[in-house]
């Protein structure tokens, strides 16, 4: 009897040790899902809803290059620009085949604006996010050697309140720049003359040339001008400080109520609805693995994009929350177009 219980104790100890060891090992490695059979057997296309050369395109191309390096598979970029992104987004949601060879590199809240403001013919669940790449919030900037350049954002808002419509604010209509500015204006009572531009570059040119006083932009677009002193960043449309410029006042610091992580460019990867779970998980794993790699971070830093990876679950959460925010905002503004 005694021998048996000794054996039993030894046995359970060994089993316990094995279990502990395997648990530890599992935690230190990103769990690799089952590789789907016969996939991929040809290049995978990243669909970008903007023309070649722009910010989204650069993000997608850098990701494609890094993924080729890390995974050994082939990734191509396919530009489907037009309509401020709605053409490519509609393609992803309605025409792209869910076979795992078409992955969209998309941007929110622009895509949600397509659905809720422009009345695009697809629904939010027609694409399924598989990973988050980066988020860049809108910031406001002005010329350094102008009257506004000597004030800080709070003072500018007060000035705009006292002198309604005197300050010319450049935005891209129907995009985060526009919405963030309107939120600020509504809450502080500041009144700007909104000047619409078709893209970031024309707005920056107008700002540099003195044709507008202040503009909503992305920091990455004006990085050079800030560094050489011609433009000055004023505030960031988010509640946590910007990594590249932590001193920029946030909305929270200015007592302006604004949702976090919404008004800017949330760049993520997604697949069309109906892609098999196996392929989805495998793609998500590949992207996560690539983004965790140190050289990838450096490659993105070289093109002035700060990599802020999100897992599939995290991105899905951000996706749903962002949708609710945009829906809420448009409803209050009375501009909600009934989704088709």
């Amino acid at each position, binding site marked *: 009897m005694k021998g048996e219980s000794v054996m039993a104790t030894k046995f359970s100890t060994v089993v316990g040790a094995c279990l502990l060891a395997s648990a530890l090992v599992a935690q230190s490695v990103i769990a690799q899902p089952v590789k789907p059979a016969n996939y991929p057997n040809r290049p995978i296309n990243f669909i970008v809803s903007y*023309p*070649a*050369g*722009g910010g989204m*395109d*650069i993000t997608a*191309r*850098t990701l494609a*290059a890094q993924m080729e390096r890390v995974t050994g598979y082939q990734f191509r970029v*396919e*530009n*489907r*620009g*037009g*309509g*401020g992104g*709605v*053409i490519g987004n*509609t393609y992803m949601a309605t025409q792209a085949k869910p076979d795992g060879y078409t992955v969209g590199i998309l941007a929110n809240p622009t895509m949600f604006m397509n659905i809720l*403001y*422009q*009345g*695009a*013919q697809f629904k939010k669940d027609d694409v399924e996010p598989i990973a988050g790449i980066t988020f860049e919030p809108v910031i406001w900037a002005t010329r350094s050697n102008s009257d506004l350049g000597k004030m800080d954002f709070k003072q500018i808002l007060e000035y705009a309140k006292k002198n309604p419509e005197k300050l*010319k604010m450049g935005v*891209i*209509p*129907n*995009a985060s720049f*526009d919405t963030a500015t309107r939120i600020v204006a509504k809450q502080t009572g500041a009144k700007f*003359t*909104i*000047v*619409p*531009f*078709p893209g970031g*570059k*024309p707005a*920056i*040119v*107008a700002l*540099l*040339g*003195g*044709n*507008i006083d202040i503009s909503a932009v992305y920091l990455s677009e004006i*990085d*050079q*001008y800030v*560094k*050489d002193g*011609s433009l000055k960043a004023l505030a960031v449309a988010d509640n946590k400080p910007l990594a590249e410029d932590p001193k920029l006042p946030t909305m929270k610091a200015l007592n302006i109520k604004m949702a976090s992580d919404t008004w800017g460019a949330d760049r993520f990867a997604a697949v069309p609805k109906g892609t098999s779970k196996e392929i989805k998980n495998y793609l998500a794993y590949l992207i996560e693995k690539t983004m965790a790699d140190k050289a990838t971070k450096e490659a993105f830093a*070289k*093109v*002035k994009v700060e990599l802020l990876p999100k897992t599939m679950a995290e991105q899905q959460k951000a996706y749903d929350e962002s949708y609710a925010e945009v829906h809420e905002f448009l409803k209050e503004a009375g501009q909600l177009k009934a989704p088709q």
Partner: protein
Amino acid sequence: MLEGLLTAVSPTYLLVEIVGVIVGIIFGAIPGLTATLGIALFVPVTFLMSPGAGMIMLAGIYAGAIFGGSISAVLINVPGTPASIITGWEGYALAREGKAPLALSLAALSSGVGGLFSAVALLFLTPMLSTLALTFGPPEYCALLLFSFTIVTVMLDTPLMRNLLGCFIGLLLTTIGLDPVNGAARFTFGNVDLMSGFNLIAVLVGFFCMTEAVFLAFDSLVESSSDEIISYGKGNSMGELFATLWTHAVTYLRSSTIGLFLGILPAVGPVETPFIAHTIERRFHPKDEKFGKGSVTGLIASECSISANVGGSLMPLISLGIPGSGAAAVFIGALTLHGLQPGPLLFKNEPVLIYTFFWGFIAVNLFMMFFGLFGARYFALVLKLPKRVLATFIAVFSILGSYAINNSMFDVGVMFGATALALWLRALRVPILPIVLAVILGPLFEQQVLVLFTTSAGVGEVLGRPIADGFFAISIIMVVFSAVRRLKEGRAKPA
């Protein structure tokens, strides 16, 4: 500066320059494929080389493509790129007179001169001239564009009302898409694809390439006409060619300056530049009856200005990070992907790279001129192809080229629609030039008018800006002159 020169003539760089120019010429010469497409497609290839070499290769493709478009424009009346439309009119007319070698070589020479002019300006004057890009605000743009529309509608020989009709139809067509104020859909009838409007390249390919394919197909079926389009004719001596440098010096200089200036302005690119330069040049040669129908001066003006525009658009790109044309915007993307941020800091941080690039650009233009001058007779081999083959392949490339811009079949549909529109308006005797200019400049014009009305305090502020005043004044003068001329002609005609 010297270091840049030495790097630019090192063997690797020379190879890259030559390859870039040749690829560019091929892309440009094939109708339906554009410079922008060429640059975008070769960006991945440039990752195999150092950033400096990559930049020069892309610049070579840009410059080569702009010249290459003229080859097919002159030889088969199909502009290889939209920039070569005007060159096509002059050059093809000359070719039909049996002067194809002269036209081609002259195109090469003018391209070279214009390109070198802008390349030298790039080398020495970039810091100074690039600030010009910033001084142009909404009033200046509106004045410039109004000036462009005026010269085109007023200076053409065709009746004024038909010119205006074409211009207004073109402008109206550009309003379809997203409205510039709110980003909401306008005139799209619920169609998603229309939200991006009518793609400019697809429209121009439809207007000029596909229509020509149809006419060629028709011609090839006629039993009596010869299989070849035109006979090449005898070559010219180099002496005759270079003599034009002296006899037409003013034209060369004027067109190059206009091209450079328009290139520096963001949003005015190589497509609209020759229209403006050509029509301005016409003003200085009122007695030249062949203008638009085979005039050497017109050809020089057109080609010079386009190539000068290429260099000009690189100026604000390098120094301010602002693209001076659509192809330049892709260029910026390519630079960013290489880790080089075009803008004020690039000049400070990487002067050697920049100067290497500038010298490389000079070399690129020299190679372009060289290939053009000596390769002319080889290009002409294209003329040996029977019309039916040309018609077929122009159709293929028109379709593929329109598709490749945004990977969209809708753009191919737009191209066919534009072909139909061009044929219809031609039957109606409405001239195509005002429509083309309106379609190209329409979106920019509406945008600038909008910003003008939103930002300016009143007419007084607009009139207070000298450059804008200048353009407005010239426009009014031209309208008056033209009205007088037409009245005189009207009186001279028998009642």
